[in-house]
């Protein structure tokens, strides 16, 4: 009994620094923001702040663009690495050298490489000079719907790298003995892929999907470095909305937005986890 209480104390002591940090900077102030969310000048106002938030056009613009970005960029950043690592798995050797090269977009800082993107995609940039030589019309990559396309391209470029490594590791774990009998039974490569390899790759895929979702939350960095504080309306993300309210010090609105968004993120994640659980049973 005595030993048990002693280990309990050590366990709590070891976890304590992390817990203090999390409570101090995340949990306690989140509760404070709950208070701000439901008050105006220290007076309880019910859902007034939330109603004001839902009437804000810029909030919905940020939500819309963030949703469009996520729905296109995340599937691309999962499927393209899957295809590439399936392709890599057909080689017998040498791929480990290449896969270490694939990590470089992850290691190179965003700010370092952003200038190359600017030169490539500027109005009078490298890509447009190429298009002009081919007799095609130039494309304004920094304005209109193309601005979002450019952000998606950069996101996929950056995140493919690490996902290829993870997929390749997952593929290597599938033993040959599983695939051979099916092949002997007359299954073609496509059937082996869809009936055996992909189902076995499910856990890896789900993990990679989750990682990609988390990194998609950080796309604001690229958008900010490319377009600055006040971007084209096609790439105005939810982080821009939050930042603008920070600059106005609009606490009630910030708190309301933080609460709504945290609930939304949890709801979306719950749906994914439940879908994953149901389909794997």
């Amino acid at each position, binding site marked *: 009994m005595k030993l048990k209480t002693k*280990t*309990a*104390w*050590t366990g*709590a002591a*070891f*976890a304590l*620094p*992390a*817990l203090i*940090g*999390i409570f*101090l*900077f*995340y*949990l*306690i*102030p989140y509760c*404070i923001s709950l208070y701000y969310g439901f008050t105006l000048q220290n007076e309880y106002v019910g859902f007034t702040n939330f109603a004001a938030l839902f009437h804000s056009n810029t909030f919905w613009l940020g939500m819309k663009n963030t949703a469009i970005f996520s729905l296109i960029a995340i599937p691309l950043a999962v499927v393209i690495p899957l295809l590439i690592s399936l*392709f890599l798995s057909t080689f017998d050797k040498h791929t480990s050298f*290449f896969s*270490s090269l694939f*990590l*470089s977009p*992850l*290691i*190179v*800082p*965003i*700010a*370092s*490489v*952003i*200038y*190359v993107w*600017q*030169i490539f995609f*500027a109005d*009078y940039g*490298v890509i*447009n*000079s190429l298009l002009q030589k081919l007799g095609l019309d130039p494309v304004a990559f920094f304005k209109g719907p193309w601005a979002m396309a450019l952000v998606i391209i950069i996101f996929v*470029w950056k995140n*493919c790298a690490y996902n290829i490594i993870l997929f390749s590791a997952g593929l290597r774990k599938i033993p040959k003995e599983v695939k051979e009998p099916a092949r002997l039974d007359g299954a073609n490569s496509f059937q082996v892929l869809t009936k055996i390899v992909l189902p076995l790759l499910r856990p890896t895929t789900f993990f990679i999907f989750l990682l990609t979702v*988390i990194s998609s*939350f*950080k796309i604001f*960095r690229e958008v*900010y*470095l490319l377009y600055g504080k006040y971007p084209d309306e096609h790439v105005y993300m*939810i*982080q821009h909305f*939050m*930042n603008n309210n*920070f600059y106005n010090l609009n606490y009630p609105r*910030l708190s309301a937005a*933080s609460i709504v*968004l*945290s609930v939304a*993120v949890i709801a979306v994640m719950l749906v994914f986890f439940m879908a994953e659980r149901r389909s794997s049973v």
Partner: protein
Amino acid sequence: MKKRIVLILKYAALVLIVLMFLLPIVYMLANSVMPTKEITDAYTTSPDHYASFHLIPDRFSLEQYYQAFLRRPQFLNLFWNSVLITVPIVIIQTVVSIFAAFAFTKLKFPFRDALFFIFIILLIMPSWVTMVPNYMMIQRLGLLDTIWSLILPSAFTAFGVCLLRQYMRYVPDETIEAARIDGASTLKILFRIVLPQVKGGVAALMILTFIDNWNMVEQVIVFITDEEKYPLSVALSSFSSSDPGVIFACGVIFMIPPLLLYLYHSKEFKNSKV
């Protein structure tokens, strides 16, 4: 013969894929060894002068590096800001996470699983949610516009604990029990038995935390008003408009710390499988 052609085509495709990932980086490296005049000539564009694809330098020169290191004191200041922010975050995050992950995986204490659930929820929270609570606490502590406003919230994230817990789960309980019966203290068990088995996880945590915070943007532009305290991850882009001639060398220099850290740990990192 047919097999051979397929193989050649496959290798061609492989090289093409690798090129697509490497081109922007190779382009930056190649342009960093051009004289500043060659850069400004090539990329000062107008409707009748498009930028051209310029990969091979006309003349090799280290002028940009010379300029960045010796003629741009503000560049080195901004670089130093990045170091001052990132290094403490990596150290705090790693040490705190090692202890907490060990406690959450191998030790027992009251409310352990409920508390860990908080970490999982926090792990998936984007900056657009967490920056509001961060701001409220930083402001109450009077830390706004100091580098601590960037260091403290980022040093205590759920990421490190969740990542290391994944690795520590595979450390067999028998080895820990055996050491305990031999009279080893919990601290000794952590450092002698557990840590050597999760080296890859610690390496991955350090590399990923370093890269993430070396790229910090969103907190900087809200929590810091004095632009002299900005790290390079934000300030480099303003540099590019005021001083385009040296931007490629600045970008390469900025890339060196994460690259060195990665190369130092690359063996453990690549062998680390979650």
